[in-house]
């Protein structure tokens, strides 16, 4: 809103400034308001240093993920959104399968959006929290490198942990 009077003065650009983000994975393009896109520190740095052309290419992030990221940025760029609304909206964005969540973490990290990185990594932590360890392995694809004996030993360690005692 602060930029509105400035724009009127220029008269040549009456509408809000927008940026186009383009996923380099499936070439999908998204037109977003600049102040929304600038929540990404990576994009902000590009814009600030005049590296951003008309279309900002976003490598390694698919259109599907980019759409979610933009949804997050739009919600958080809205000054009238209450904290509760934002929490609800965030919960909706991260209510996804593990693969999408992992892509979202990578995207939030690449685009340097601190808040999104927090909610996505918290969501992954919450999913791990609610699963038995066998399911954690299966769902996250973590290889079990314990032999049954080793696993039993680790299990026992948590009930009776001794070190250096006879």
């Amino acid at each position: 809103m602060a930029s509105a009077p400035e724009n009127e003065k220029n008269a040549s650009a009456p509408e809000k400034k927008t940026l186009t983000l383009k996923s380099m994975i499936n070439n999908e393009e998204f037109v977003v308001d600049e102040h929304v896109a600038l929540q990404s520190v990576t994009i902000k740095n590009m814009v600030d240093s005049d590296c951003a052309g008309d279309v900002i290419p976003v490598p390694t992030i698919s259109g599907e993920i980019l759409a979610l990221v933009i949804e997050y940025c739009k919600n958080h760029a809205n000054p009238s959104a209450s904290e509760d609304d934002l929490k609800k909206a965030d919960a909706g964005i991260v209510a996804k399968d593990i693969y999408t969540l992992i892509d979202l973490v990578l995207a939030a990290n690449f685009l340097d959006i601190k808040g999104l990185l927090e909610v996505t990594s918290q969501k992954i932590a919450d999913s791990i929290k609610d699963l038995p360890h066998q399911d954690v392995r299966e769902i996250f694809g973590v290889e079990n490198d314990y032999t049954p004996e080793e696993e039993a030993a680790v299990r026992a360690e948590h009930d009776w942990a001794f070190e250096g005692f006879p």
Partner: protein
Amino acid sequence: MHLSTTVTVARANTIERGYCWKAIVAVKRLRVDTTACFCRVDAGLKTVAGAKRFVPGTKLCLQPDIKPSIHPTRQKTPRGDRNRSQSPLLPGLPDDLAIACLIRVPRVEHRKLRLVCKRWYRLLAGNFFYSLRKSLGNAEEWIYIMKRDRDGKISWHAFDPIYQLWQPLPPIPKEYSEALGFGCAVLSGCHLYLFGGKDPIKGSMRRVIFYSARTNKWHRAPDMLRRRHFFGSCVINNCLYVAGGENEGVHRSLRSAEVYDPNKNRWSFISDMSTAMVPFIGVVYEGKWFLKGIGSHRQVVSEVYQPENDIWRPVYDGMVAGWRNPSASLNGQLYAVECKDGCKLRVYEEKNDSWSKHIDSKMHLGNSKALEAAALVPLNGKLCIIRNNMSISLVDVSKCDDASSASTAEHLWETITGKGQFKTLVTNFLLNLAGRNRLKSHIVHCQVLQA
């Protein structure tokens, strides 16, 4: 060296040397029985010919399809192998991002994380994981309660106040399983020390052990310089101070005092107290250690210690006069129980040197031994009251700054595990724990550990 001997034995030509590498790495990594067939364990590497040649006793496996490539892969292979054996913590994420996720898993589930795989186990066993949790504000505080059951045995229990769950713990090492008058303190936020005390058979001890909330294990620390039991102890600037108490051989109370610095891993004497004492109450307030106890002529004595100039001096002010056990200091304020059941607290006011200010829950519980407040400890910025029946209340003392709000302070009190919840799983656990003799057991120490 494994590699050089095998190479000389084999007189391998340069082209085959790459495969030799692979075979060795594969053998070392997988610890394959040398009589087994290599193409089963390592078909992708096509190492049959090489492996057969360099590992004596290998049975020849007929797999005519597999031929060594004529293009040597050389150094690239070992590196590729190493990467594959170092699988990521969470597939799809670089390890730093995986760790950013894993440190957010609540402490109550850390036992499970260790069970997932060896890499997760190693991550949680190292200091890095918990230091990161601490610096990012993810560390959680649990209450540790040490009690003496009716049979005289020491047992201990951890309570997670967020999930309101009791946690299993490794047993107390046997030298402390029946000890009397031992000390208990926390250093570095996560190490619970037990020290000194009197073993029913061996008598007074110098022994020091500690439990790490990060690894869930007990360890030894250097012995104290003097044997002592029924002494006072405190922590100032992450150094452990002990003073006074009794020593079996001498049969009288001690004046000596000593300090343990975990960074130096060493005990050293500090100045003797001005009078010998068996302390029954102690607290650190404004950087000074206050101790009150019974002197050698059965009189009540009080002393204060200033660590920066290593001086003890007797103290007679209103603070020690109105001081009750248990007490605790939190955010520069000094609190003590007013009512035995901990339903009312008294606060020390320095400006008029008195304990005239009170915080009252207006919910008197009773005077039985079971309901007696055994400990006051700071927990997440609140004051935690632990009673002998293992009921726990939290008081948000930060919200009662003026006397008028303190008089109507009911809303500041919160019971996190109490009689109401005794009808739940906790009840059963506690009943099993202490049986019908719950009333006869009592709490000897309470501490809060972070991880």
